[in-house]
């Protein structure tokens, strides 16, 4: 991965909330076409990290750089054309249709006054197609399941046509079929050079999907490397308080992980 261009990087990030230190000395990099999974126990600071990487939260110290340039030096709209964020908590108005929801992803390209053109409509149609929700285009958000809404949020992010895609638990409400569809979509997007950083709750899923895994525990990066290196580390067992074991299963390209009581 080191040979590829760095898209997004964090340098010695510190974030405090009140007097509590949420992130401490976090340094990481996301490369072109990379699949980077951020894992960690609850309240480890994963979502804060994603918010800081997306520029929604000003770090107390340290810096985030997007394509080598400090995030705070980017004009807002230019930044939103390069970097997209999708979380599982976003909710548009209930009466908004999926198509209109996704089309708002073109805002950074068109701004407040220019009407959407053919290129915008093509990007929206492509995003709906990639996430497998073209058939929901005219449905209203209020009539969708939580999983379908999540796919609509992802489609909005894809409609931005970003080079960096940040996802906070993108599969939180998805059944297994939609989970597989989601990660297939992410792989498809990566083929075009998009770097994808996703907070992933399911460690097996993270291991199967990611090129690289970053383990965040108590606001620090506790381990970083291939899925095998990170999940097999004592740091991972300690962070989650469970025993993690990898098993070789014939015909499976990656290790299969099981989790037991006690580190």
């Amino acid at each position, binding site marked *: 991965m080191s040979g590829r261009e760095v898209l997004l990087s964090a340098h010695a990030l510190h974030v405090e909330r009140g007097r509590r230190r949420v992130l401490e000395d976090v340094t990481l990099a996301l490369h072109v076409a990379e699949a980077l999974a951020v894992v960690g126990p609850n309240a480890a600071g994963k979502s804060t990290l994603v918010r800081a990487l997306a520029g929604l939260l000003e770090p107390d110290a340290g810096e985030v750089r997007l394509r080598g340039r400090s995030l705070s030096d980017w004009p807002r709209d230019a930044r939103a054309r390069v970097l997209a964020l999708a*979380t599982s908590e976003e909710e548009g108005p209930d009466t908004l249709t999926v198509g209109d929801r996704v089309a708002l992803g073109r805002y950074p390209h068109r701004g407040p006054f220019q009407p959407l053109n053919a290129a915008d409509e093509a990007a929206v149609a492509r995003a709906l197609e990639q996430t497998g929700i073209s058939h929901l285009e005219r449905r209203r958000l209020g009539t969708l399941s939580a999983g379908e809404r999540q796919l609509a949020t992802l489609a909005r992010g894809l409609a931005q046509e970003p080079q960096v895609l940040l996802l906070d638990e993108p599969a939180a409400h998805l059944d297994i079929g939609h989970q597989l569809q989601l990660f297939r979509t992410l792989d498809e997007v990566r083929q075009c050079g998009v770097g994808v950083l996703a907070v992933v709750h399911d460690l097996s899923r993270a291991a199967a999907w990611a090129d690289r895994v970053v383990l965040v525990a108590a606001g620090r990066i506790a381990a970083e490397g291939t899925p095998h290196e990170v999940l097999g580390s004592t740091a991972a067992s300690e962070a989650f308080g469970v025993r993690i074991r990898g098993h070789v299963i014939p015909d499976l390209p990656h290790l299969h992980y099981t989790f037991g009581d006690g580190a």
Partner: protein
Amino acid sequence: MTTPRSRLVLPLLAGALLLGLVVATAAGSVPLPFRGVVGALLAKAGLPVGTPGLSPTGETILFAVRLPRVLLAALVGGGLAVVGAVLQAVFRNPLADSGLLGVGAGAALGAVIAVHLGLASAVFFALPLAAFAGALAAVLAVYFVAGASGRASLQGLLLTGIAVSAVAGAATSVLLVATEEFRVKAVLFWLAGGLEGRGWTHVQAAAVFVFAGVLLLVMLGRPLDVLSLGEDEAASLGLPVRATRLGLLSLASLVAGACTAVAGAVPFVGLMAPHALRPVVGPLSRHLLPAAFLGGALLVVLADLGARTLSGRFELPLGALTAIVGAPYFLAALRANEGRG
């Protein structure tokens, strides 16, 4: 996404409003013949048709009394409905209303201060400007008090709105006590909301602010749509969230202040019109705001017609009438909303 159904809504509403305007100008304590009203209006518009006109008295009633009042009702209703739709998008709650966020109480206080100081009769635009200042002060107070901790929650905003309304209401009461008795009745009536005795100067004053404000709000429709997705998503789409929100709230206060200045408190219009139309035309501003304007205008034209004609002995306060209809509507909508969430 325009569906065939939603494309029909604007022409239908416009037609209904036109009909409502004519009916409301014809009806009243002195009924005017419907055909005569249409003929006189068309003649005034430079389209003389063969229909018999009105008597000179009828013409006077139509052009000096009825028409300005009915047009003012339409302006106020349209303006308040657009303000409601904007506040609902900014605060991301389909039940937000200018009344609930202190806009109405603030505007009322500003206007009462202007009346109390005698400014209202001395300076032409003093009353709408004072009402606007009051509305804006209330919105900013709500926005900054609720948002002082960094991120404002919806609950915090609404509860702060109640507190700000209470303070503004208290100040209004104190001012009323301190106001000379002969002025109190006028002020009281004005607080109840009404269009009695409103003429062309009021129409002009309101039209300037309402049209300018509504036009700007419609132009800012797309940022408003982005904002309605929530603060984080709006910011990640490159929207300057704070500046946009402040700009939209200021424009909404301007319109609400102008409406309150000419008509007093007309509650629940900003809630009912957008709430009823959103399921039909969807929440995108470029569809919802024009539809809400027409729907709110129709609502208040009809409510004012009711205020003038329901009782044979006296005029009912317009605000009381919209409250009697609006409060049960609000409670029903609230129940439906909670049942879903």
